[in-house]
């Protein structure tokens, strides 16, 4: 018997009206998500926004209280076992067995995924190599650093080469260097053809990795788009200029007002001019205008709003700084 399910052809994840309640709290309150194939989709929000809960429902780890979802065309509620065959899930807290070594963990998960003993062994070796864990392969996991655990966890999620990977806060608690390595790994996965759905509370992470971002706050989706679209939703870019000769300031202001009809902000003593731009492309017009009037500049920069500003504008509150102390990698 073959069941055909209907949804958009290209969707890796297609969810409508997801709801999860814990007691009286609506942790997820009607979220729609569409993740296209081959993209990195970021779910961005502060702690407790409902990111992890959403992911867990899509991964069959939590039953949905409302709404419906399809993963690669398969209904999550109806066919959880099929969905599990399509997914690699890496949780917020490393879900590996602390009683086993890294090598034993990978072999165990390989066996559980139906690999023969020899296949499981060679897959484990491959992954240990790829994630730089050969040296630590036979060490107790209790002695692993946060970054090593996270790498092992991700390695375990890749054993079955799943087409879709869920990463729940993949770099929370990692130091900047380890975070950069994790980002590289995620980019590699996408190059190999994986679709990645990740949650993060770090705006720069969404900016760095995600093709598209959904901003979640208090169980609801408050915005969606590419990082650039989100940024352009809140206000404008600005052009920051510095004149070689501060005496030219008045002339320069005249040029700017003639071209973009905006009042620039001045720092006259240093010859600095900040021009608000509704459209970043107008920056070139301003530069050409100054050149034509022979008003030389020493520097020019277009500044875009950060996702932090975006978040504040969208939700009316900032992302509380919940970033924990970075963990240190032990010296080898």
């Amino acid at each position, binding site marked *: 018997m*073959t069941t055909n399910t209907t949804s958009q052809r290209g969707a890796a994840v297609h969810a409508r009206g997801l709801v999860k309640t814990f007691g009286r709290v609506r942790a997820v309150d009607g979220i729609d998500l569409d993740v296209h194939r081959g993209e990195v989709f970021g779910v961005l929000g502060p702690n407790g926004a409902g990111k992890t809960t959403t992911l867990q429902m899509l991964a069959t780890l939590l039953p949905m209280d409302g709404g419906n979802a399809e993963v690669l065309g398969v209904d999550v509620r109806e066919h959880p076992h099929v969905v599990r065959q399509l997914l690699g899930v890496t949780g917020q807290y490393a879900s*590996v067995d602390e009683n086993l070594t890294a090598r034993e963990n990978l072999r165990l998960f390989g066996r559980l995924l139906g690999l023969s003993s020899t296949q499981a062994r060679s897959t484990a070796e491959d992954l240990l190599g790829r994630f730089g864990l050969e040296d630590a392969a036979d060490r107790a996991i209790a002695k692993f650093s946060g970054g090593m655990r996270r790498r092992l966890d991700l390695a375990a999620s890749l*054993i079955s080469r799943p087409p879709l990977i869920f990463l729940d806060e993949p770099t929370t608690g990692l130091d900047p260097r380890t975070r950069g390595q994790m980002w590289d790994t995620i980019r590699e996965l996408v190059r190999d053809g994986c679709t990645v759905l990740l949650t993060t509370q770090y705006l720069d992470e969404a900016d760095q990795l995600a093709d598209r971002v959904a901003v979640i706050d208090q169980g609801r989706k408050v915005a969606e788009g590419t990082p650039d679209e989100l940024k352009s939703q809140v206000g404008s870019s600005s052009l920051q200029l510095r004149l070689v000769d501060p005496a030219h300031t008045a002339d320069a202001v005249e040029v700017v007002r003639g071209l973009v009809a905006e009042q620039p902000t001045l720092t006259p003593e240093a010859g600095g001019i900040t021009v608000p731009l509704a459209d970043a492309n107008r920056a070139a017009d301003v530069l050409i205008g100054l050149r034509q009037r022979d008003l030389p500049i020493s520097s020019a920069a277009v500044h875009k709003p950060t996702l932090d500003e975006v978040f504040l504008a969208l939700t009316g509150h900032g992302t509380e700084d919940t970033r924990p102390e970075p963990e240190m990698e032990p010296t080898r």
Partner: protein
Amino acid sequence: MTTTTTLTPGEPTVTARTLAGARDLPTRPSVRETVSQSLALAWRALLKMRRNPEQLVDVTFQPLLFTAMFAYIFGGAISGSVSDYLPLLIPGILAQTALTACMATGIQLREDMDKGVFDRFKSLPIARIAPLVGPAVADLVRYGTAATLTILAGLAMGYRPAGGLLGVVAGWLLTLVAGWSLAWIFTWLGTVARSAQAVQGISMMVMFPLTFLSNAFVPADTLPGWLQAFVRFNPVSHVVTAVRDLLNSGAVTGDVGWALLGCALVVAVFGTLSVRTYSRKM
């Protein structure tokens, strides 16, 4: 996903649109997959046991201690002498140590379920029962150790089972079967209780009546009538009687049948309940 799928003709499948094109995937794990997944998880449990040998205290020292203690304390009072009491006592201790070992199954499962690795088990396309069956299979090692040491302690104290080697092996095997079956009661407790301490507390309240309100240590006809009724109903009594018959006369009596039936019933009821609560808890 080149690895997990072994499609059996006739199994229901669902088409998933992966990057490599449409692929038919099974909607549930096959029996063969369930068995191999359970064995993989039994291997994990054995590795854990080897890393934490202190987990084996309850199946090594305890049977030795209890055999000696009970024999010398109750022997004279119940059977007139220690040597006369041993044929009655050893099968009782076998049942008691098996039950104590089962109790640890539930507690360890609860502790395990609170750890991150169980999240991964849940996210994997494996049979929901495998994470419960795996540790249960590995625990056969524990029941085997407990039963062997109890019999050896008895032999050292002068017990000479009339059932001979065959009877002893049969009694030993029945103890293992009973331990594995009754462990499902505690596995179920492990899936419903909120903490390992809670499992321990509730398990004690289940384990003590099951052991002592049976014919494990005293002949049932010395008990008041209402208690005799419970003792007769208690599956542990049937196990004890059956093991006694096997050890002391080598006879396969009707009680062996009743014991196996009782065990099968416990597995059917508590196995089903366990899988249901475990799957719902995800």
